[in-house]
C-alpha cells in the first residue's frame, strides 16, 4: 500500500497529464465536428472489426451444422435435377423413324406406357422390371416395345410391377422375318453383346441381304407384324447347315433402356383360344 502511494506520488504528473489529455480530447471531440466525426468513425471501425472477428469465429464453430445442412440440400437438389432432366428429355424427345413406324403399326392396339425400374444386363438370363402391373391392365405374354423396337415379353405380373423377359435373355424366342419377305425364323440371343442376336431357320432360298430390316412376323399373339427388331449384319449358315442364320444388330439398346410400352393385343384372347382348341384337338 505504501509502495503504491509512493508510486502514485512519484508519478503524479503522469496521471495528471493523462487526466488532462482525456479532458482535452473530450473537448476536442465534443466541440469539433470534424474530429468528432473522425473519432466516431474510427471507433465504429474498431467495433466493426471486433464484431467481424467474433462473427468469423462463430461462423467457423457453426461449420459442422452448415456442412450437414448443405449436404442435405445437395441431395435434395440432385434429386430435383434428376427429375427435371427426365422431364426435359421427355419434353424435347424427338421421335425416330422406328418409333413413328411402331406407333403407326400399333395404332389399333392399346398401349400401356411403362418405365423400366430394374434392368439386369450382365448375365445370360437378363430381366427387366417395369412399373406397370395387373392394376394397369398388363398381363403375361404381352409384348413390350421401346423406341428402338422390340424389347421383350411380359413373363410375370404383380399388381403394380411386371417382369419382362427381354430379347437379351437366352429363353427369349420371338418370331421374326426379313422385311418384304414372308419367311420367318426365331430371334435368339446367345449371350455376349447386348446389341447382337441371331435369327435361325431362314430357308436357303430366301434372299436375305446384309442391311435388311428384321421385323416381327406377326405369327404370335404378342407382337403385331412389322415391328422393328434390328438389321441384318451378317448372313451365315445355321449349325446344322440346312438353313441360314442371320446375325442381327438389335435396334434396342438394352444397356440404356428407360421408357417402354406394353402392347395389350385386342385379339390375343381369340388367338390363344384358337391355339388352345387346336392343341386340345390334336392331342386327342
Amino acid at each position, binding site marked *: 500500500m505504501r509502495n503504491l502511494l509512493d508510486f502514485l506520488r512519484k508519478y503524479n504528473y503522469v496521471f495528471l497529464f493523462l487526466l*488532462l489529455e482525456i479532458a482535452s480530447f473530450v473537448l476536442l471531440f465534443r466541440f469539433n465536428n470534424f474530429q468528432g466525426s473522425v473519432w466516431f468513425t474510427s471507433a465504429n471501425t474498431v467495433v466493426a472489426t471486433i464484431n467481424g472477428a467474433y462473427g468469423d469465429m462463430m461462423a467457423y464453430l457453426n461449420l459442422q451444422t452448415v456442412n450437414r445442412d448443405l449436404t442435405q440440400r445437395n441431395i435434395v437438389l440432385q434429386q430435383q435435377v434428376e427429375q427435371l432432366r427426365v422431364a426435359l428429355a421427355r419434353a424435347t424427345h424427338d421421335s425416330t423413324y422406328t418409333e413413328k413406324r411402331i406407333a403407326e403399326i400399333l395404332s389399333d392396339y392399346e398401349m400401356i406406357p411403362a418405365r423400366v425400374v430394374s434392368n439386369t444386363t450382365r448375365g445370360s438370363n437378363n430381366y427387366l422390371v417395369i412399373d406397370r402391373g395387373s392394376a394397369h391392365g398388363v398381363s403375361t405374354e404381352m409384348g413390350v416395345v421401346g423406341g428402338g423396337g422390340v424389347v421383350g415379353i411380359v413373363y410375370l405380373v404383380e399388381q403394380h410391377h411386371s417382369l419382362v423377359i427381354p430379347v437379351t435373355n437366352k429363353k427369349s424366342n420371338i418370331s421374326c422375318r426379313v422385311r418384304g419377305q414372308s419367311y420367318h425364323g426365331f430371334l435368339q440371343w446367345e449371350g455376349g453383346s447386348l446389341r447382337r442376336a441371331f435369327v435361325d431357320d431362314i430357308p436357303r432360298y430366301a434372299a436375305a441381304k446384309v442391311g435388311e430390316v428384321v421385323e416381327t412376323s406377326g405369327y404370335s399373339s404378342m407382337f403385331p407384324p412389322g415391328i422393328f427388331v434390328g438389321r441384318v449384319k451378317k448372313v451365315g449358315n445355321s449349325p446344322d447347315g440346312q438353313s441360314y442364320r442371320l446375325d442381327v444388330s438389335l435396334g434396342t439398346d438394352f444397356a440404356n433402356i428407360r421408357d417402354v410400352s406394353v402392347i395389350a393385343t385386342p385379339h390375343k384372347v381369340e388367338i390363344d383360344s384358337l391355339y388352345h382348341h387346336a392343341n386340345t384337338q390334336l392331342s386327342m
Partner: protein
Amino acid sequence: MIQTILSRIGWFLLLVALQVFVFNHIHVLGYATPMPYVFFLLILPNDLPRWLFVALGFLLGLIIDMFADTPGVASASLCATGLAIPFLLKAMTPSDKEEEVFIPSLHTLGRFRFMLFAASASLINIVLYFVIELFSFYNWESLLIGIGGSWLLTWLFVIAIESIRSATKKK
C-alpha cells in the same frame, strides 16, 4: 514570491493576448502561424514540480482554445509539451548547473542550449497541434509545410521574446 507569481501571471496574460490578438492572425503563405505562447513554459524554474508544467500547459492551452475557437487542440498539445519540457530542460542543463535552481534563459543556459531547448519544445508543441487539428494524414504535404513553417516562426518569435526579456533584465 508574490512578485514572482505576479510576474508569471503577467507573462501568461501577455502571451495569451499576443497569441489571440496578433499571432493567430498571421498565416504566412496560408500555412505558417507562430505560436510563441509555449515560451511561458520555457521560462519556468527548473525546480518546479512536473505536474505544474502539465497543469499550466493545459490551462494556457485551454484559454488559447477558448479564444481561437479550437476546443481541445492547444490544451492537448501544450499539456503534452508541458510533460516533455522538464525532461528537455534536464537534458539541456549544463553539467555545472545541475545542482542549481535557475530560470532557463539565454543567459543561464547559454545561447545555443536555449535555442535548442526552445526549438525542441516548439517542435513538440507544433507537431502535436497540427496533427490534432488536422486529425488526418491525408494531406501530409501541407501538414509538413504547416509544421515546418509554424515551427520556424514560433522559434524565431520565442528567441526574439527571450532576447527582449534578457535585455530588459540586464538593464
